[in-house]
């Protein structure tokens, strides 16, 4: 077993462990942290596949942003997980059935060709995964890529239009109005005769 295989098994083992912990620990914050760990270990595996861009993006997007917001929500909601788990034994047979079906289907797809593929060749040290990905994304897949961007725009518009509303009863400051204030609006200098005794 070479060094590389050793690293692979370490990452893979940690990944499976963390994945199992995500669905078994009782504390939702712990579960979220184990999910972070699964992201890290899978990023490690991707690095070994020479997909460093994807690996780092996985950490950047999922660990750096998505999971932070997720944690935010989990902490704020303070979910009690016990009622959520009550039906576990009842759903177990169905779950096993689905898992078996998926394994069989994967076997059908991969089975006949398993081992038929040669081991892919290693790229040299000057191979740049990011540049390769960029050049294919902006040429061959430019149309789907732009469409994905449009979908994100729609998602933003939808999210904002559904959440942004003016509630008349809430007091809030309007910085524009604060800055735009003039002396005449607030201050009135009155000429008065001094009082005479």
């Amino acid at each position, binding site marked *: 077993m070479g060094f590389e295989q050793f690293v692979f098994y370490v990452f893979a083992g940690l990944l499976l462990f963390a994945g199992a912990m995500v669905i078994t620990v009782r504390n939702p914050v712990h579960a979220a942290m184990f999910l972070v760990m699964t992201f890290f270990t899978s990023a490690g595996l991707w690095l070994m596949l020479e997909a460093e861009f994807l690996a780092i993006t996985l950490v950047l997007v999922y660990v*750096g942003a998505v999971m932070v917001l997720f944690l935010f929500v989990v902490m704020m909601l303070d979910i009690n997980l016990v009622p959520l788990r009550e039906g576990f034994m009842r759903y177990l047979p169905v779950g096993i059935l689905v898992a078996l079906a998926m394994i069989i289907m994967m076997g059908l797809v991969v089975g006949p060709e398993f081992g038929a593929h040669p081991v892919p060749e290693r790229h040299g040290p000057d191979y740049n995964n990011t540049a390769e990905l960029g050049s294919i994304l902006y040429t061959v897949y430019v149309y789907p890529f732009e469409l994905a961007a449009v979908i994100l725009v729609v998602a933003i518009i939808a999210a904002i239009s559904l959440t942004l509303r003016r509630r008349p009863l809430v007091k809030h400051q309007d910085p524009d109005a604060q800055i735009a204030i003039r002396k005449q609006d607030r201050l009135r200098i009155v000429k008065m005769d001094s009082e005479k005794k």
Partner: protein
Amino acid sequence: MAEFIQGLGLPEALATFIIILIKIVAILMPLLLALAYLTFAERKVLNYFQARVGPLHVGPRGWLTPIADAIKMLFKEIIIPSGANRFLFLLSPVLAFGPAMAAWAVIPFDAELLLADVNAALLYVLALTSFAVYGIILAGWASNSKYPFLGAMRSAAQVVSYELAMGFALVGVIMAGQSLNLREIVLAQQGGLWMWFWLPLLPLFVIYFISGLAETNRPPFDLAEGESEIVAGYQVEYSGISFGLFFMAEYANMILISVLTSLMFLGGWLSPFEGIPYLEEWFAWVPGIVWLLLKTSFFLLLFLWVRATFPRYRYDQLMRLGWKVLIPITIVWLILLGGAIVGEVGPWFD
């Protein structure tokens, strides 16, 4: 050094491992020392700004103060609140400190002087700095107390928001440098003061630094701590070295942001006198790392200067600045920059 270890007749993998270990130590030891003295510098600078003299008594002219502080922190008791989540409470300072150190792996100090020449170095740094927020959030939650929790919530929203502006600023750097590799980005800035990216990317440069202030939770964006409102935010329940790790992480992140700003916008180790007759030759003997350290020190001073000058932002103002001012500016500038690069506008992009 490397030849010496390879000559010892150790197995290949082990020798490489030892060499890397030595390099790591060579980066981290000066860094930790710099951390300690940055705290000292901060106190001194702030004090001079406020017309005071600052620490004077430990060692000659107070020079041993940070050492005394470090010893004090190491020997103080770590108090764990009874309602706290013990595991996460102890884990979170480590999560804050770890990424702040790990990011240094890809920082080039000179054209040849770096630990790992990674293709996607910039993304790596961004990913690690974004990870630092976990320390703060978990600390706030694990303390099981009001003020830390408020601080953690503030910090989570703040860091995620400013990361966007920061990321967009970095996209500009990547476009201008045509690479994700920090070394290549610096090399793309060759040709003197006016070729450095601060000029063509001026708004991005400013925004990057502002977002850096927010990402490190430094004043005027230190709402996560906010001593006057929420007592010290996520740090309330921490003591001893567990507090010390947060403290060190904050300063390590400051240095990191300063180094990155110097590398990406101020030409890193390149001499400012490049292309100027006489001056260039007179200063040719100065090693690149000195220029880098000088630039970094300048930005560190700026960090302290800002702290001494500006009052803290209010929370809604902070969000407004991030989302409604900084992000739109970066996007507009990215479009202009794209035009300039495609149109090969000189002298930077021809």
